[in-house]
């Protein structure tokens, strides 16, 4: 750190600076006593046993014939994957999971952002309404699923309110969108809070300056406040994508993967095949989910962060 700084400032130093290495090494030996490494041991022991080891097992047992029907476990190479790929299950489950994640991220952010803008001023009414929108966030996702299953029944309340007769949860094309909206309904209160916090961090004098320059309210909003929300967008999009790729409860409670398996996201498939005793297939899909998230998460977060840096 010290070398480039002196170069930039071109400070006239007669003597060479003391080697920066020396104090750091001294500090490290002090740190060894004041901040001992064994403090890391319990946390990393738990991580190792309950997180990393099962993940490692994923890479092993996905290539075996492990099942609930026999005790021996033999390696079978890529059989599980070729079997899952040949009947189209693999690609379909991946596609459904991705579509679901993108839809949830889209709806959750649209709803959350809209709510944040609507409820931005700190009036008593707005505070109460914000808390109401937090109720679904705290509720069990399973309960949310059952509520909407009842609400969206063909003879249910929504249809009678709208005066139509539509099977919201029985459409092989559009039900995935309906379920994604339900997922977004549960979590939009969280996105709203993040966006509200983001809106609060924007300094008032920036808006003042824009107003003096003659910018309208709408223009000031899109030109100044919206770009400054980038960190909130990053957080919300990333958590919504990851949360819905790992989703299970809402889909299970509304459609259980149906109709005709058109909402069967990876975790539903894993749960179902595990319940049938086909442990190796479930593990193979679990590995697919792991790789999918690992491959997607890092580029997504990096792109969003880069956008933040540009702004």
């Amino acid at each position, binding site marked *: 750190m010290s070398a480039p700084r002196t170069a930039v400032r071109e400070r006239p130093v007669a003597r060479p600076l003391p080697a920066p290495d020396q104090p750091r090494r001294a500090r*490290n030996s002090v740190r060894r006593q*004041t*901040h*001992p*490494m064994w*403090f*890391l041991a*319990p*946390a*990393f022991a*738990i*991580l190792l*046993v*309950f*997180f990393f*080891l*099962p*993940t490692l097992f994923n890479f092993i*047992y996905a290539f075996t014939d492990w099942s609930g029907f026999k005790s021996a476990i033999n390696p079978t190479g890529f059989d599980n994957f070729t079997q899952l790929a040949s009947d189209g299950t693999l690609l379909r489950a991946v596609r459904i999971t991705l579509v679901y994640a993108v839809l949830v991220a889209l709806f959750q952010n649209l709803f959350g952002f809209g709510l944040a803008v*609507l409820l931005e*001023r700190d009036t008593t*009414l707005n505070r109460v*309404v914000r*808390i*109401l*929108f*937090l*109720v*679904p966030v*705290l*509720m*069990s*996702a*399973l*309960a949310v699923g*059952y*509520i909407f299953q*009842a*609400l969206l029944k063909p003879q249910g*309340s929504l249809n009678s*309110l709208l005066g139509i007769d539509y099977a919201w949860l029985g459409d092989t094309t559009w039900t995935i969108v309906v379920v994604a909206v339900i997922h977004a*309904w549960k979590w939009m209160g*969280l996105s709203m*809070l*993040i966006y509200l916090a983001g809106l609060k961090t924007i300094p008032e004098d920036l808006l003042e300056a824009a107003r003096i320059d003659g910018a309208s*309210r709408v223009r000031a909003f899109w030109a100044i406040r919206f770009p400054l929300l980038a960190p*909130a967008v990053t*957080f919300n999009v990333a958590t919504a994508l990851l949360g819905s*790729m790992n989703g299970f*409860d809402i889909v*299970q409670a509304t459609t259980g993967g149906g109709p005709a398996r058109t909402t069967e996201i990876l*975790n539903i498939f894993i*749960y179902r095949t*595990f319940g049938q005793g086909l442990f190796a297939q*479930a*593990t193979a899909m*679990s590995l697919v989910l*792991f790789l999918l*998230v690992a491959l997607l998460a*890092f580029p997504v977060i990096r792109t969003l962060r880069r956008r933040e840096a540009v702004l």
Partner: protein
Amino acid sequence: MNRFWTKAQPVAATALALVVIGIPLWLVLVTAAKSQGEALNPDLSLPQRWQLLENLKQVWVDGEVPAAFFGSLLVVVPTVALLLTFGSMAAWILARRATRLNAVLYALGISGIVLPPAVVTVVLLLRQLGLAGSAVGMIGVYTGIYLSTVIFFVTGFVRTIPPALEEAAQIDGAGPVMVFWRIVLPLLRPVLATATILICLYVWNDVFYAFFVIGGRLDTLPLNLFRVASAGLYLNNWHLIFAYVVLMSLPLVVVLAVAQRKIISGITGGAVK
């Protein structure tokens, strides 16, 4: 435009809340108060006779709510305790000792925020350890899953605290355990509150991991809701499903009403920097 918005906003906000949140919650309440025949096809009409208490009493017994409540507590409380203690111990070292090894350990430690846990093989591992279906196994799995979140939040927070206080205590001759326990941990209170809220939210409501790890050998509130509903969907017991939902959500609504300010600042605390 401006004056119009000031007048229209309260109306819009109220209407939106009533429709978007009010209707689903109303459906839960009225259906939970109906008889089985009336609730066969749940709608928004008022029950002919309110029998909310009878329904609650019935799910209390049929859904084994007391056992499930204690099962949930038995898992959540130790999980939170372990996560906060071990997570902040690790985070303190990772934040204060900037070595290359620690940078690697930090990256590994927070990788679980993004990466999904291996739900199937963890069952195999727990069987080998003799922990399958036990509360201990469940606590270990939850702790392993959410340690990343705690390490991430707490490490970021420790970096914002000046080390002067710790150094003063060290000069007075306090060892690392003493410094951590008496100086660092009390300073971490705000971020630990955030972490506690998030973890409780996830663990209290989780069914997915519980399906795999517990597999019906221990009752928790969401697992029993699933049981009641799976039996109920077959028998069309919507009044019991929603009575269970009311019972299960009541503690959360009370907590939200009492501690809403803390929860809101807690949830938003770590997100926007």
